[in-house]
Structure formats: C-alpha cells, structure tokens
C-alpha cells in the first residue's frame, strides 16, 4: 500500500456499498466462479466491466476499488475521487456546489466568497426543505421543525480537486416522522432543490424567467428564498458559474426524472435576482417598527460638515436576525454613534426591503435610542 490519497480512500470503501451502487445504476452482475469476486457489466454504452473484491483481506483490495472508481468515473463523466467519496457515504445523498471560474481554477476561493457560498447553500437547503412541506412563493420564517432538523443533520464533506467545490452530505431521512413507503424527507428535499434550480435555469435560458412565477402543472413551485440563496452563492469576481450536482445514495432507488446536474451561468444572476424580488409578497412593503443594535457606522461628512449617512443595524424580524442598512441625517447619526458606543438598543420605523445580500430600512423615521437617559439633539 502506498500513500496515494485515492488508495487511502479506496481502502475505506465497503464492497457491499459498491455492489449496491452498481446495481442501483443498472450494472448487471454476471456469474463468477470465485467466491471472493463479483463481476459487473454496464448495460449502457460504452461496454465496461468491473471486478468487485468481496474480501477485505485481498492484498489488492484498495487498488481494486480505485480501478472500479476510475471505470465508473469514466462511465459517468466525472472524477474518480468524487466516485470514491460517494461510495464512502452510501447512506447519504451528496450535493456538490461548484464555482467554476478563473479564480477558482486552482481549487481555492476567497474567504468572503466561500462564506457567501456556505450561507447561500444553507439557505437553499432550508428553503427547499420548507418547500417540500409547503410549496409556496415565499417562506416568511423558514422555521419548520423538519426543515431545521434536515439542515442540522447536513454535513460538509471533503473538498475535491478541480474548481472550488463545496460538498454537502444530506441525510436521507431525518427521523422525525416514519417514512411509510414514500420517499424520505431528505431525498425529497435534495431532489427538489436540484429540480427547482434546473427549472429556474431552464426558464432563464429560454428567455422566459416569468415562467417560474406561475409554474406549469408538474413544475416545482419556486420560492423567493431559494432564488435569493442562489444569488448569495454568486462569487464577487463575476467570472464564475455555479454547477450543482447530486450524487444519490445507492441504498434508495432514484425516482425517474430526478435531475442530477444543473449549470447556472453567471449571466443568469440578474434575472434570478429579479425573479426573487417578484416572488416576494407585496405586503412586505408595509411600514414596520424595528428594534435592534447598531453594528456598523458607515457615514461621512455631509454638506454642512457634520457626519451623516448609512449605519448598519442588526434587527429582529420574526425569528430572524437581519442586518439592514438605514440612512440617517446628522442628528440621528449622532444617536446611532452613541448607541453603538454605549451598546444600547435603537428603534426605527420604516419599510424593510430585503435583498439577496443587503437589506435596507427605507423611508425611515422615528430613530431613537431605547431606554436609558433621554437623548438630546445637540
């Protein structure tokens, strides 16, 4: 055995999982007279054959697994490494979110873009989980217990060679409710996510993004939350496309028609952002009172030489903590600075306008500190 990472992975792969994987993908087992080997042939072209070792004590067990992974990879048009990772996680579906562009070609990504990708992926999973139970254009809270349990049981998998790829291992089932013959909640969520993004990308590509606002019969109901999550995944350098891939657990047959790969071109993001805005309900545009803390002061000297401008508040909206910008005049800006220094709460009235990355409190009024001694205008 040598230190080749592929062989290290190969040594950990279980032969029962390999058999299940091949059988789930239509490979046909042919008779073998050896008790320690199974022979499988692909039904689809090109014709291909693999030998599966059925004894972990075989000296070339790891090597045999790598050979299988290479042939399956060639058959499925992907890397042997990703096949081996799938074989190591047979009880989970794997979702891969790849950023493919100039700056990610070496397999790395800036910390900021990486964080945006992780946050976007988390929101997309949550939105999709909510849509499994309640298909709707907007999930105001995304607080369903099942959705929350699903996301909590997701794991980040190992990164893979190539463009920057975030691998998320999703549970098949989340154990809150028994699966009575139907498809487990986890699989439904992962499949719906890919199906929704494929429908969205297809509509944009066809020049008909409006199609997702009133989806045809059988098409997924897209949520604003999912669209916003996709936009959040977009890297800042504007050179990278997003590619989603699903690798499905061999332990659970894949229902026909499930999408396994979607390519979201960088040029689609503007349309997706517009769709997200249109999917949000109109009643969100009503004024509301917000309470929160000042987390960032971004102002500068105004016409009269006094500091004024934008501050960032962290406010509670339903059960979400949102960072929202609000533009203040010099007097309110001083209050905000004081609240920031004294770590006090502030309140403001306005219309919350959500965005994929930045939220705003517009038409703001009544900016005040909460509690403590009264503030003065000077």
């Amino acid at each position, binding site marked *: 055995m*040598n230190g080749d990472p592929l062989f290290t992975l190969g040594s950990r792969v279980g032969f029962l999982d390999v058999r299940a994987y091949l059988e789930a993908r239509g490979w046909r087992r042919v008779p073998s007279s050896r008790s320690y080997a199974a022979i499988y*042939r692909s039904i689809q072209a090109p*014709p291909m054959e693999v030998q599966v070792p059925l004894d972990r*004590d*075989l*000296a070339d067990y790891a090597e045999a697994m790598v050979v299988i992974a290479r042939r399956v990879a060639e058959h499925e048009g992907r890397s042997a490494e990703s096949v081996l990772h799938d074989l190591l996680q047979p009880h989970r579906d794997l979702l891969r979110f790849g950023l493919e562009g100039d700056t990610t070609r070496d397999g790395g990504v800036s910390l900021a873009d990486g964080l945006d990708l992780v946050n976007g992926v988390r929101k997309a999973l949550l939105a999709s989980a909510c849509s499994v139970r309640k298909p709707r254009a907007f999930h105001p809270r995304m607080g369903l217990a099942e959705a929350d349990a699903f996301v909590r049981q997701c794991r980040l998998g190992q990164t893979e060679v190539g463009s920057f790829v975030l691998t998320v291992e999703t549970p098949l089932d989340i154990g809150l409710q028994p699966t009575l013959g139907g498809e487990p909640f986890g699989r439904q969520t992962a499949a719906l996510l890919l199906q929704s993004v494929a429908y969205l990308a297809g509509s944009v590509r066809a020049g008909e993004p409006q199609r997702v606002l009133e989806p045809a019969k059988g098409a997924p109901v897209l949520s604003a939350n999912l669209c916003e999550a996709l936009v959040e995944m977009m890297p800042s350098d504007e050179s990278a496309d997003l590619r989603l891939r699903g690798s499905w657990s061999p332990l659970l047959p894949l229902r026909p028609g499930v999408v396994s790969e979607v390519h979201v071109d960088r040029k689609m993001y503007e349309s997706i952002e517009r769709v997200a805005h249109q999917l949000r309900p109109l009643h969100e545009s009503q004024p509301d009172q917000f309470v929160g803390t000042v987390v960032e002061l971004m102002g500068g000297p105004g016409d009269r030489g006094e500091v004024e401008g934008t501050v960032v508040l962290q406010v509670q909206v339903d059960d979400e903590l949102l960072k929202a910008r609000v533009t203040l005049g010099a007097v309110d800006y001083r209050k905000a600075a004081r609240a920031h220094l004294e770590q006090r709460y502030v309140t403001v009235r306005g219309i919350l306008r959500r965005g994929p990355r930045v939220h705003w409190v517009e038409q703001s009024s009544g900016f005040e500190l909460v509690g403590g001694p009264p503030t003065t205008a000077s």
Partner: protein
Amino acid sequence: MLGPNDIKEQLSLAYIHAVASRAGCSVEKVGVDRDSIDLKLCARGQFVDDAALTSPELAVQLKATARASLTEDTLSFVLSKKNYDDLVAHSLVPRILVVFVMPEDEAQWFTLTPESLILRRCAYWHSLRGEPRTANGTAQTVHLSRQRLFTHDTLRELLMKVAREEALES
C-alpha cells in the same frame, strides 16, 4: 549514465514489452511500486469465447539477474521477504514473479546488427499464490521451473486462464 542494475532493469522491461506486444497485450506501468508489483499486463475485450472476465489482467513482479543459479530443471532466485510475502498474498488480480536471466558477460546482454536485434537468454515465470508466508528474516529463495518460459504464447495462456477464472498453476 545508468549503472549495470539499471540497465538490467531496463532490458528486462524491454523483454516484457516485446513479449506482451507479440501476444497482443498492453503493458501498464505501475507508477509507484505497489505491493511489489512493477507492471500489469492487460488484454482488452473478449479474450476467449468461454471467458468470465472480458479484460483479463496479470500483475507482474519483474526481476533481472546475470548471475542465475541454474540447474537443468530449476532456477533459484532470492527474493526479499517483502516481495515474497506480497506475492503469496491472496489478490483479486493474479500476481506472478517473472525473472529475466541474462548472460554474465555484459557485452552479450544486447546486440544490434543490420540483420538482427538480440536480447539474449529469456525469462521464467512463477506463481507463489497461496504459498505460506516466509518465516525467514530478510529473504526467501524461490525455485522456478525452467519449463515455465515466459513467452508470448505462455502469456496468452496465462491471460486465458485469468479470463476463465482458472488457477494459473493448473
């Protein structure tokens, strides 16, 4: 410049390539020595009508020697303990030892004229599969039958056996 041992190794590889080519097989070099395997000999497609395996492979540990210990029937060769134990181990792809015997006189190893290209002497093959692991500390002597020449015909026979899932020794 290559030393004598490197030259022996390269000439033994040339021998294997020549035999495999004549047998219609490919030679796959194993990049890093894995479990004492130097290369794999592979046939592609339906190699024989009654085959269970369509693309049989044979893993080879290749040695070369110019100081062979030969009797009329056998060639004795000293293998390191690691090489020996790796070759007796049970494996999915059958493993054989191939020993290329060369003349002692270095000038005779390889000659080239307008009429001929001569790589003198030949190689023998042996399967150690299923033999007990050695109790020796560092090395084990292996006795190869001089009947088992490693030629293009024997290579094809060996690969046919692999394709039929038969034991190589039978």
